């Protein structure tokens, strides 16, 4: 925590500034260092997929960006502004709740287990935060929600509670709910891992649509190598809290350079 903050810019300028930048980010739980001096940029509109063995820190990367976890070192920037820190008298200090709240508005997240609000219908799930956080009227929020539920192909299930929806449908509501906040960056943490194989396609199709029709910046963790290869602009292979190798899908899958990448890809293809 006694890091010299002067080496971190107060903000990122220039037309080529990334939408997300992890700069020298370290995260540990007690003695366990989960992420070690991570540097990672995601450009505006880019779809970056994180793959890697279990426990390598993939989820942690997303959770830090969502502000669900604090960091122990380094700085995360979103759209040029520090997320984990804020400027005070010309230096970066840890962000307070207010700054975090303002910055968090840029980011949305979909979880492995959907985490829909069970006491609300699909449309209510989508309206909740637009009404109670953004201050939209119920009518505006409903229109926005209906549009998004149609986008994910659930116009028929608008008034159903999550308990009456399949896993694939619940995950699609969760995507609509996140989109309703109009985030600049959308995070997906193994959003198909808890789904039965036959409904995975419903969810991946929605993500495909988002990639092709919307200029969202996305950071995705997945174990579906085929989908990652098809959809990503770039793939990062994590190993023990560091990026072992990254590149375009063709580079990484077609011609992996590092021994560990080759091992990992061999292991996942054998498992299939």
């Amino acid at each position, binding site marked *: 925590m006694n890091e010299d903050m002067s080496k971190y810019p107060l903000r990122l300028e220039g037309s080529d500034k990334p939408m997300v930048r992890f700069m020298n980010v370290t995260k540990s739980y007690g003695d366990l260092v989960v992420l070690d001096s991570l540097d990672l940029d995601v450009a505006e509109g880019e779809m970056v997929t994180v793959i890697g063995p279990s426990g390598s820190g993939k989820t942690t990367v997303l959770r830090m960006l969502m*502000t*669900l976890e604090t960091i122990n070192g380094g700085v995360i920037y979103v759209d040029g502004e520090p997320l984990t820190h804020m400027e005070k008298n010309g230096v970066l200090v840890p962000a307070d709740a207010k700054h975090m709240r303002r910055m*968090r*508005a840029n980011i*949305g997240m979909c979880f492995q*287990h959907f*985490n829909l*609000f069970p006491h609300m219908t699909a449309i209510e799930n989508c309206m*909740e935060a637009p009404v109670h956080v953004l201050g939209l009227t119920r009518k505006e929020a409903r229109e926005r929600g209906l549009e998004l539920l149609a986008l994910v192909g659930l116009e028929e299930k608008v008034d159903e509670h999550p308990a009456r929806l399949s896993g694939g449908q619940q995950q699609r509501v969760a995507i609509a709910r996140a989109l309703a*906040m109009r985030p600049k960056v959308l995070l997906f943490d193994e959003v198909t891992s808890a789904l039965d194989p036959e409904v995975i396609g419903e969810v991946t199709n929605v993500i495909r649509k988002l990639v092709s029709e919307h200029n969202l910046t996305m950071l995705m963790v997945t174990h579906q190598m085929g989908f990652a290869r098809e959809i990503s602009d770039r793939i990062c292979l994590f190993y023990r809290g560091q990026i072992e190798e990254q590149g375009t899908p063709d580079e990484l899958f077609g011609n992996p350079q590092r021994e560990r990448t080759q091992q990992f890809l061999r292991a996942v293809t054998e498992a299939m």
Partner: protein
Amino acid sequence: MSYIEFLTTYGPRLMTGTLITIALTVLAGLLAVAIAFAAALMKLSPSMVVRGIATTYIEIFRGTSLLVQLYWIFFVLPLFGITLEKFTAGYITVGMNLGAYGAELVRGAIKSVPRGQWEAALALNMSPAKRMIRIILPQAIVVMLPPWGNLFIELLKGTALVSLIAVADLMFQAKQINGSTFLSAQSFGTALIIYYIVARFGITPSMRWLERRSLRMLGRG
């Protein structure tokens, strides 16, 4: 004296007592719920002082006897200049006592809501208060309703103690009738049955109704 005669003679007094008992139960119940939520939320506060106040309250009211608390509030508080009318002292004591037990129920129910719910609400940028009120509490209430049903029955039974400070509740009336007639089996037997009926046909169905409603809220009704 046949039991029918007993009922026609003393029924009205027992009925009056029953109404007082029900009034005590309702008022003490409302107070218990309010205290339980306040104390539970205080126990989850980041401030150690706030948590300490709630813990102390809960410890004192759960760790000592309801009867002693009643005597304290009715006989000792006046020595400090706080005099409560006996009916008021009665339901306040019972409500404060059961509220301490209820606080643990509320806290447990809040804790039982999966972490993912908090995280999803945070990811949607909801404020801490909105997260609690709009997301967590509605789900916690579903979990805590069945144990609250038991607690309300305990509370009903607990109100019988207020007869000891001469509140004219059901128990008080039964004791009075017994004192003048020595018909113990009839007096206390009838009181026993009335307590059972209020619990079994008043509290239990009301709670079941609330439980069904809350499940419907989750789309599981």
